[in-house]
């Protein structure tokens, strides 16, 4: 059941345009979902939109028609509050009907405030409590090794989230067990809820911390789609070590009035704000 995608045959310029279009659709859906829900986390969803796009529309081996395909790669959204970006990507990839997205956070919806694996296909594990995703990804990478599968496990961590001790316990484990089928990505936007990560509790220098923990570190511009793709591809080629992709990002990326603003971590746009956000994202209205 190997999936040979159209993207394989694209030129770099074509791939860039293809991915840019996907990222734009995802950003629009994030804004719409959160506005309709009346609550949610736009900042951290938008900052991860390009990383998630590169994963789901180029790098990840997956099959929306068979979400439990045993040979699939795995993705763990450790920063579970960015659920909208994942939901939008899964809808665009064809896991479910896009119109279902507008039920986000409402009673009875499969689209919980934070991803719920028991409710929604395509969600590998329920998250929302920060700090736990890397250890979970370790377990999945370990299982793939035990079963001799060549699946790669990816996980996305927040920079604020990296203040959790469990992240560093898991960092030791992955290096110790040479989990070279594990790729962690840090969404480095230098914002958390109460302010700048560097002001609240500094985690820098982050790259030398991870290399000191025995990881192969790659730094990348988290909004350059082709760079993210090639970084993820070179990550897969690393052997003997887990890989950390340090992705420099802008929280709220793509909507000027949300960009690098701490106040847009967990606040829904008003109808008016949605309109101007959508305009910046290339559409006049809800289409």
């Amino acid at each position, binding site marked *: 059941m190997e999936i040979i995608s159209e993207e394989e045959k694209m030129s770099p310029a074509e791939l860039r345009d293809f991915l840019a279009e996907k990222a734009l659709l995802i950003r629009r859906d994030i804004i719409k979902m959160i506005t309709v829900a009346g609550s949610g986390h736009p900042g951290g969803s938008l900052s991860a939109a390009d990383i998630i796009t590169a994963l789901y529309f180029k790098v990840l081996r997956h099959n929306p028609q068979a979400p439990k395909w045993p040979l699939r790669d795995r993705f763990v959204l450790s920063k579970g509050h960015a659920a909208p970006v994942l939901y939008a990507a899964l809808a665009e990839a064809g896991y479910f009907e896009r119109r279902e997205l507008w039920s986000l956070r409402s009673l009875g919806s499969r689209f919980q405030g*934070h991803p719920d694996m028991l409710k929604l296909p395509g969600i590998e594990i329920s998250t929302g409590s920060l700090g736990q995703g890397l250890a979970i990804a370790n377990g999945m990478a370990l299982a793939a090794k035990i079963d001799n599968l060549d699946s790669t496990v990816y996980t996305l961590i927040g920079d604020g989230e990296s203040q959790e*001790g469990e992240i560093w316990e898991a960092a030791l484990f992955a290096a110790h067990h040479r989990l070279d089928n594990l790729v962690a990505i840090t969404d480095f936007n230098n914002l958390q809820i*109460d302010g700048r990560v560097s002001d609240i509790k500094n985690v820098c220098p982050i790259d030398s911390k991870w290399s000191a923990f025995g990881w192969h570190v790659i730094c990348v511009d988290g909004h350059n789609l082709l760079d993210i793709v090639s970084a993820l591809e070179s990550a897969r080629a690393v052997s003997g070590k887990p890989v950390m992709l340090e992705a420099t990002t802008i929280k709220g990326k793509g909507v000027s009035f949300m960009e690098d603003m701490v106040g847009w971590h967990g606040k829904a746009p008003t109808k008016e704000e949605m309109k101007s956000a959508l305009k910046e994202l290339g559409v006049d209205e809800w289409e």
Partner: protein
Amino acid sequence: MIWDCDKATRNGYRDALLELGREQGNVVVLDCDLSKSTGSHLFGQEYPGRFFNCGIAEQSMMGTAAGLAASGKVCYTGSFAVFATGRAYEQIRNTIAYCNLNVNICPTHAGITVGPDGGSHQSIADISLMRALPNMKVVVPADYIEAKAAVKAAYSIDGPVYIRLGRPLVPKIYSEDYEFQLGKARILREGGDVVIIAVGVMVAEALKAAEILARDSINAQVINPITIKPLDDEVILVAAAKTGLVITAEEHSIIGGLGSAVSELLSERLPTKVVRIGVRDKFGTSGSPAELMKYYGLTAADIVMKIKDLL
């Protein structure tokens, strides 16, 4: 009775801290990147030398609080209830409670009224976890006034206190002259047919239920024990003896919380029928707080229905 919702219990924490900062030089406040939600950022602005944002690191926050308390400070720690009691449970158990340190654990966003964030963020077992720890006191305020009074009183209570605070605006139950006393229940309404023992947001629901029942000549007594541990045994025993039917109501799992505490007391000292209203061994889910109160059967109408079925 008027049921205007003006303030949340979490606002009581915020305002009590400001007063404590002024009155007590040894109060130190810690938070875990949620200071704007818990309100402790205002304490931080007033008393920057006695406020520390630990980042997203609940376990080491509790350890740091323990160290501060072991060095003569009185610590207040903020976060969401699910993370404070869950992630940092063992730090609370083996350092704060085991050493009987003056750390007052006052997380907000307890229970299902967190709303749309969903099950991962809705603590339904925190009372249960904290109640089982020796030395720990467990307080569940019903309104802003009670919350503020409890947070202030915790300063002079020996050892750790767990104060469970909520996110939503709730009706005012008490008047400004309210005085908090650990282990002292309040009888909020007299009645001889049934007693409703309620804490937190369920106190208002219990009072509403009692009003509705009165129209059908069913007289319900309403008691707010305020502290689940220590529990006001005497008031509950007298009420159970008088009415012969006890309803407990809490925004928490029916396993291990108020319902369990009351059942434990009565089964040993005065076997009486106890019916527990609460979350029935389920996780939370996304929805508005009002929808979820209905979904989990926690409204005044649910209490009324249950009592009519039983009588």
